[in-house]
């Protein structure tokens, strides 16, 4: 007999439950692996690569990519070189994003409140508002472009205005009117948000609305005291999502002009970054620096929105009430 065997502790049996937990965890990670690997390869790696690129000047010679370390030059160029269009591009992008968020949220909420009432043809109207959102943005933009173009080219809206003796509007060539065009298209395709709001409105407790009615409250009181506190979390979520998609606007600009016309008012940040990455020569490093600055700006906006999320949370009283609900 081995003397050591006397002193060594007896093996502790691993409980069956623990073994099962480990196996379950391994299986869980394996199932999550595609997403994890996808994130590492398709998101994290490009992000880190673009961070490194942002400190380089990248050119292609004889088919090979040549990277030259230039330190902070790309970042300095963005903020100090008169040729840099970053400031104008980020300004038009943020102006569009903020106005668009307000318009979309208010418009969708109003439409959802109206479509939440009982009336004949309600379901058909819901479908009418939702349908445009299933059409690709590319097709939507082309259709609106055709509708809003100059009357001599066949633009229906301007032709109608002209027949009514009203001066046509330069929707596509005027630097200010182009925003009207973009907002029209945005509102046209916001059916998804309307559906989410309608679904949330189903959750508004009817007995509380009745109680306000019995107390002599009007529609505004009902909205302010019951509806709004109930839909706050969804409202916040939609606000964040709308802000993100608005900052990422790309298709409309490319279809309408490709180069930000009129007067670079549609030269949104993603269009500029794409342009610098794939159209211009030797600007890929600059595009990476621009992308990182945009990332930081977006992050800052999101943090601010999350800070205000507290104010948009569902009222405690509502939460408590729901808990005691049978």
């Amino acid at each position, binding site marked *: 007999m081995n003397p050591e065997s006397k002193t060594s502790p007896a093996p502790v049996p691993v409980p069956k439950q623990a073994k099962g937990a480990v196996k379950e965890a391994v299986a869980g990670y394996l199932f999550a692996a595609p997403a994890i690997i996808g994130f590492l390869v398709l998101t994290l790696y490009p992000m880190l690569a673009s961070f490194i690129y942002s400190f380089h000047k990248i050119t292609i010679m004889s088919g090979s990519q040549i990277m030259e370390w230039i330190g902070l030059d790309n970042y300095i160029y963005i903020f100090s070189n008169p040729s840099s269009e970053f400031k104008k591009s980020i300004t038009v992008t943020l102006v569009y994003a903020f106005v668009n968020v307000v318009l979309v949220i208010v418009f969708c909420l109003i439409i959802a409140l109206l479509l939440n009432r009982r009336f004949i043809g309600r379901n058909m109207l819901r479908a009418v508002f939702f349908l445009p959102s299933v059409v690709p943005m590319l097709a939507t933009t082309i259709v609106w472009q055709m509708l809003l173009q100059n009357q001599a080219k066949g633009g229906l809206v301007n032709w109608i205005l002209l027949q009514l003796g009203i001066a046509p509007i330069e929707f596509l060539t005027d*630097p200010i009117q182009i925003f009207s065009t973009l907002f029209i298209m945005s509102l046209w395709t916001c059916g998804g948000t309307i559906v989410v709001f309608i679904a949330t409105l189903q959750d508004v407790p009817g007995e509380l609305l009745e109680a306000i009615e019995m107390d002599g409250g009007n529609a505004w009181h009902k909205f302010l005291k019951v509806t709004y506190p109930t839909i706050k979390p969804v409202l916040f979520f939609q606000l964040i999502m709308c802000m993100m998609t608005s900052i990422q606007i790309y298709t409309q600009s490319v279809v309408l*002009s*490709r180069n930000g016309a*009129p007067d670079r008012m549609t030269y949104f940040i993603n269009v500029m970054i794409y342009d610098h990455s794939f159209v*211009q020569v030797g600007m890929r490093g600059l595009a990476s620096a621009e992308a990182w600055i945009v990332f930081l700006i977006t992050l800052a906006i999101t943090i601010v929105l999350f800070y205000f999320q507290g104010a948009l949370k569902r009222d405690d009283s509502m939460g408590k009430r729901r808990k005691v609900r049978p």
Partner: protein
Amino acid sequence: MKVGKRTLMMSMAVTMALTALTGCTGNSDNQQGGTNKAAEGTKAPANAGDNKDTEAKDITLELLYWGDDVQKKLVEAATKKYTADTGIKINAQVLPADGTFDTFIQTRLQSGELPDISYMGEGDIQKYNEMGILADISDLLTDGSIPEKLSAITIHSPEQKVIGVGLSNQLELLFYSKSKFDEAGVAYPPTKVEEAWDWDTFVANAKQLTKDTKGKTAAEEGFNADLTENYGLGFTAGREFHHFWAANANGGGIVSPDGKEFQWDSPESAEGIQMLADLVNKDKVASPFTYTWSTGIGSAVDALSGGYAMAVSGSWDLANIKGNEDIGVGVLPKMKKAVTMNAGAPLVVYNTSKNIEEAKKFYAYMVNPENSLELLKSGAWLPNQADWYTDAALVDKWSSELPVSAKETILSYSTTKDSIVQWPAYYVPAYLKMNTEYEKSIDQVLSGSKSVKEIYDSIMPVIKSLWESGKVS
């Protein structure tokens, strides 16, 4: 049973994980960009140049081009004929004729999988030349494989190597609606360069052809420009070649043909571009447009059947007016000189090709007008070879189905000295960046909010310094 379930679960998870990675794998032979192919390409010709059937049958060349269904059919017919004649297979891939083509080339460049031959945007050729991926095709011209092409569409590198030949000699022309001219009692535009309307005549005629909703013309008292129903003139697009035409027509230019003199900032160029913008904002005879494709009038035939009496467009629109008796073609008006601009996408050979000699032979075949006769007859393309404009038999080959006015106009431009101005994109390395600087601000001129001079003061020093750099990047 439990083991079976576990195994199934694990297999599924591993499969899913690998599936996610599948798209990330590439052709390991091509991971180093195009350099390997380039190296191979320089070694390959020694045995690839032979015409032995056995070797030729193993060679497949890849051609990347853009076009519509008609062009696709014609290119496919040409490549089939080439395969039948030589045994070399051609893998011809068509893409839409829009901005995605350049992106596609860039993607293929990144993955080290460039085609052997491709079409190329006029504005991009110097960019790719500076990247060092375009083959020198001077030898094809010197050894006679390609007969002498029009100088306006023969593209040189800064070192004077020939790097491409335009497939078509596209010209900027004046299209017009005969019925609208007849109704207004205005004579049709001339078809001879030497008879081109002077600017005042042109503007006066355009005013006669511009009408408001009450039927008053822009030449009459009481005309309400805000309620214009029919414009005298429209431009296909607000893009560069219309601007460059105006600069040249007024005695200025962009960069001299030898590339040695910067002319874009000259007073004549500024005045010419101002006269172009004035057609919209001062004379009120043209519809507003911006420096982009989409705010132009689009197809000339649609514009002329709609609210326009004249349309400045490229010769590619000739294919659309076939059979339309109402549309005529004339020469552009002159400011100080009667000129037109030329364009025409070149075909290029990539030096990354593994079979560069075969690629060059195929190139010579593709740029031969004889092999694009259907496109020439349709009017979509114009011949890229000088003798096709002077030899009567050759002229008949491509022009017999075109309207008489179109034929006369094209021949007049092609046979009148210095009446065709070459697009600077062909020979100015920094063109792309210079043009980007220009397009940043020129919309303010087109909208009438600033004058050309005001804009020039702020942008021309930068544009000139880019030209002086002599570099694309």
